[in-house]
């Protein structure tokens, strides 16, 4: 039997079984087993002299029967394959974490004015995660230069790049990037944007300053830089070092 009811059954009975299996939405192997069992049930009923209409009435609505059968078979399959159940739970857990992260990063972005690192830090306080806030403050502090009105400078940016010492994405950024950039094309664009910004910083001038001001005025663009470039573990270590040396 290939998942369709037995050919020896009356057409009405076969149709009822087929409709129920359609509603059950089962893989082929389970479908064949259930089809065989339901067909055997109706054959037994007919063989015992019961009226077909009465048997079909007792069968129940195909949509409801199919939904109940489908649910119970899936439960049985999970019980038979504990690894599958664990995998499903793990996938569900990852999905929940990812959705939560996505919502957190996109829906609860802080209001801010970024005229200085202190202002940026204040804007994040209370609305960002501690690790995120610490990372962001550290990045901003490394990119701004003391004595220049807290403005981002090319020297500050280069110092940050030198300190960071690498261009490969960190493990953290690999995990975080998709949450910031669900669209891979946009992720690529952001990388190109960052590289262009770095090239501009090699030769500080009006173009760099215009780009810098545009970056600071646009929260989402600045966030992209954070998502793409921050190795959090190194930031945390550097932060701890700077506290110890103070």
């Amino acid at each position: 039997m290939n998942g369709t009811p037995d050919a020896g059954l009356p057409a009405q009975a076969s149709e009822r079984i087929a409709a129920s299996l359609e509603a059950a939405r089962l893989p082929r192997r389970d479908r064949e087993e259930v089809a065989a069992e339901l067909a055997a049930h109706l054959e037994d009923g007919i063989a015992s002299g019961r009226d077909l209409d009465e048997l079909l009435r007792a069968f129940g609505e195909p949509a409801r029967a199919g939904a109940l059968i489908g649910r119970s078979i899936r439960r049985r399959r999970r019980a038979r394959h504990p690894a599958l159940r664990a995998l499903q739970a793990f996938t569900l857990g990852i999905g929940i974490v990812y959705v939560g992260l996505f919502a957190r990063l996109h829906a609860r972005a802080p209001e801010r004015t970024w005229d200085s690192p202190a202002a940026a830090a204040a804007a994040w306080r209370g609305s960002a995660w501690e690790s995120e806030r610490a990372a962001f403050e550290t990045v901003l502090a490394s990119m701004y230069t003391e004595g220049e009105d807290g403005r981002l400078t090319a020297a500050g940016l280069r110092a940050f790049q030198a300190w960071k010492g690498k261009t490969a994405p960190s493990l953290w950024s690999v995990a975080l990037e998709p949450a910031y950039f669900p669209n891979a094309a946009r992720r690529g664009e952001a990388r190109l944007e960052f590289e262009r910004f770095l090239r501009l910083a090699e030769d500080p001038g009006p173009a760099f300053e215009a780009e810098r001001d545009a970056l600071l005025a646009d929260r989402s663009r600045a966030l992209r830089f954070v998502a793409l470039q921050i190795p959090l573990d190194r930031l945390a270590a550097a932060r701890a070092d700077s506290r110890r040396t103070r």
Partner: protein
Amino acid sequence: MKTVIRPSAARAERELMRGAGPAAVLALLERRGEMYGYELVSALASGSSGTLDMGQATLYPMLYNLEAKGLLKAAWRETPGGRRRKYYELTPAGRRRLAAHRRQWRDVTRALASLGVLERIGR
């Protein structure tokens, strides 16, 4: 104290069926050893004077759920007439669950009898 539930002409409510159905299936399988689907439906209906008369949409999901919980095991077998049927039988876990069901139902029927919901006999 011995109590009985008077059979109702009407079918049991869904919630009652949800509790009584699995217990009845386990009890039948304990008594008869192994049974196939249609045989179970017939025995449930006749043994309960229609109160536990259930269709395939109720019976088979219940059997698959009991199987998922490890209370039943099933095997396909060929009948002398050459037809294939799936037979169900109790597992040791199923026997333990049936014993638990019996305790629960005994407590419930005693409580209902004490409250005057059920008729008492043999007093």
